[in-house]
């Protein structure tokens, strides 16, 4: 057992740090949940891609560096330590892309991935529906066979980034007569500006349009925008969901950087002892998450499949993120009420953690049944 990096890994880390030092904007762009901030973040994605840093773990032929999991983790540590902007294309890069790499066709990968890497196509997630959030088996939006493709109808909601994004991916019921509710779903990519799509931005708690409702009326999608076989959407989505809760949605880098920022804030405020324990716990939690992830990455590289333990991961980081940001706002005192600070922006974002990507109640049920072996329960 060791934590030693190879000389190549150290060199990769140094290269990333040098590039980020030279390129991270000195003044942070506005919130990516605003039109102006969205455009600025898109431009940053293009700059990252030009430097070869937007999708380091992808195969080189789609714009990546094929760098592997450990180097990806190191890159993320450097990225957030450098104070680089949040990733506007997170949904595309960490949810859709792994799905395409695992289940897509070469034509789809070649067509979809490079513009995603350059920020030219920003993707929104279109999974939830008004009566189906964490319970994706209850989806009702439909895909009906049409000449050369499918016609989508129905309503999606809580679609992150959809207010300003270009395209979306989601599940649609293609066989209403399937024996079980999670059968007969098809995984589809569609254009948010296609005829028949209406996007209604939804303001989150602070009023910024971080997500949207999508109304779909006979929206045509060609066959080449269906991922995997029709009717297999659930299985494909579940592999994406494991990615979302697991390693790739929240790398430890951002929490390590946040904990360091919190510690700096605490020192700047004179190191008040009443918050000292909470600041120490934030530092400890970030280290725990980093080492847990290293362990998971090593197990994955040793050929183990990461299954329901991704639910532990999601429970940990989502609760951790809120505690850290609550501590920061408390340290700020009266200033903690202001809405125009980075801390406030990140605090509001952290509040959504236990709700999205499958609520934490669902994650606890998964842990109880699949890791602890408890009997199926009354939900």
């Amino acid at each position: 057992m060791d934590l030693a990096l190879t000389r190549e890994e150290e060199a990769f880390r140094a290269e990333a740090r040098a590039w980020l030092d030279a390129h991270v904007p000195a003044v942070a762009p506005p919130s990516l949940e605003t039109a102006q901030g969205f455009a600025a973040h898109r431009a940053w994605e293009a700059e990252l891609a030009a430097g070869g840093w937007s999708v380091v773990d992808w195969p080189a032929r789609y714009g990546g560096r094929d760098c592997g999991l450990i180097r990806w983790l190191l890159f993320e540590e450097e990225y957030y330590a450098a104070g680089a902007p949040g990733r506007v294309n997170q949904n595309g890069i960490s949810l859709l892309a792994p799905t395409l790499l695992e289940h897509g066709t070469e034509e789809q990968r070649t067509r979809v991935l490079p513009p995603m890497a350059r920020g030219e196509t920003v993707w929104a997630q279109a999974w939830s529906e008004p009566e189906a959030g964490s319970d994706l088996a209850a989806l009702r939006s439909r895909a009906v066979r049409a000449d050369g493709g499918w016609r989508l109808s129905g309503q999606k909601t809580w679609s992150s980034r959809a207010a300003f994004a270009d395209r979306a991916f989601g599940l649609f019921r293609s066989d209403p007569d399937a024996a079980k509710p999670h059968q007969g779903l098809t995984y589809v990519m569609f254009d948010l500006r296609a005829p028949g799509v209406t996007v209604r931005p939804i303001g989150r708690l602070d009023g910024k349009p971080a997500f949207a409702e999508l109304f779909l009326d006979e929206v045509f999608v060609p066959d080449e925008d269906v991922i995997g076989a029709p009717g297999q959407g659930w299985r494909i989505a579940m592999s994406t969901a494991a990615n979302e809760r697991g390693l790739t949605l929240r790398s430890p880098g951002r929490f390590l950087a946040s904990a360091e920022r919190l510690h700096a804030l605490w020192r700047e405020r004179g190191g008040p002892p009443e918050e000292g324990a909470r600041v120490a716990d934030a530092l400890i939690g970030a280290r725990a998450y980093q080492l847990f992830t290293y362990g998971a990455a090593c197990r994955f590289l040793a050929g183990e499949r990461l299954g329901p333990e991704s639910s532990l991961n999601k429970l940990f980081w989502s609760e951790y993120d809120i505690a850290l940001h609550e501590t920061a706002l408390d340290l700020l005192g009266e200033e903690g009420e202001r809405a125009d600070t980075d801390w406030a922006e990140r605090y509001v974002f952290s509040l959504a953690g236990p709700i999205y990507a499958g609520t934490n109640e669902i994650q606890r049920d998964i842990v109880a049944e699949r890791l602890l072996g408890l009997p199926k329960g009354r939900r």
Partner: protein
Amino acid sequence: MRFLLDAEQRAFAASLDALLTAADTPKAVRAWGRGEHGPGRALWLRLADAGVFALAVPEAYDGLGLRPVDLAVAFVELGRHAVPGPVVETVTAAALIREPGPAKRLLPALAAGGSVATVAYQGAYALDGDLADVRLSLAPDGLRLAPGHDAVRASLDPARRLTRLRPGGELLGAGPPAPEALLLARLTTAAQALGVGLALLDRTVAYVRQRTQFGVPVGSFQAVRHRLADARTALEFARPLVLGAAVTMAPADVAAAKVSACEAAYATARTALQLHGAIGYTEEYDLSLWLTRARALRTAWGTPQECRAQVLAARA
């Protein structure tokens, strides 16, 4: 980077688990609490045969050299089985005794399990000072072999017996103690706490699967399931801190491991007690052996406050 236990380390853990399962450890724990040390000493010898105490003794004195990761692996198992006695203190003593004379005289017996040691700062409680063969006092001028101990006081954990060591005695080494020896005490306490937490979780999961109320297993109620899921989460995130600290032996990492493992174990103890109901609140039921241990380990070798302060101080 290979942040994974290797096959040998996993086999070592499995062999200790098998040994302690076969040995009726709960019976030895209860006897120890009554001051009958025979079964515990027998267990101690078997642990020594498996190599546990040699992991902190230099090779020159019949040991295996200081191997913190293997010690952490072993102490998780000792915690899982609630092994009684000054196990932490014995490996700490092995790492503290550096002068060739005392080392040659004392270490081989510690490695072999025939000799039991306790260690404490002068004036603080030493665990099981009444039965220890070697009583080390961390005195202002150095490491001393204490001449004796005062009255035995009960711990909240009936298997732990608290004693203060008498001042004075033979000076075994002048100056401050080797820092890694004291880090080892904190690390093995953390590992032991993690094992205690894992045992509490396992036992509680087994209990709520078979205990029924309102015609269904208690474990099917969401309020119960969710508490156990939270306990599992806390323990799973303490584990890499304990192993990572064993790899780096950095003071802040060891302190982080101690806080995290002890808090997770203690939270699990509260959950275990609640979900067992009144049976868990009795001393006759074996769960009590881990419930009280979880509380005692929180303050042993570094309170949560001291450990958190260490984490903050490392960045000052």
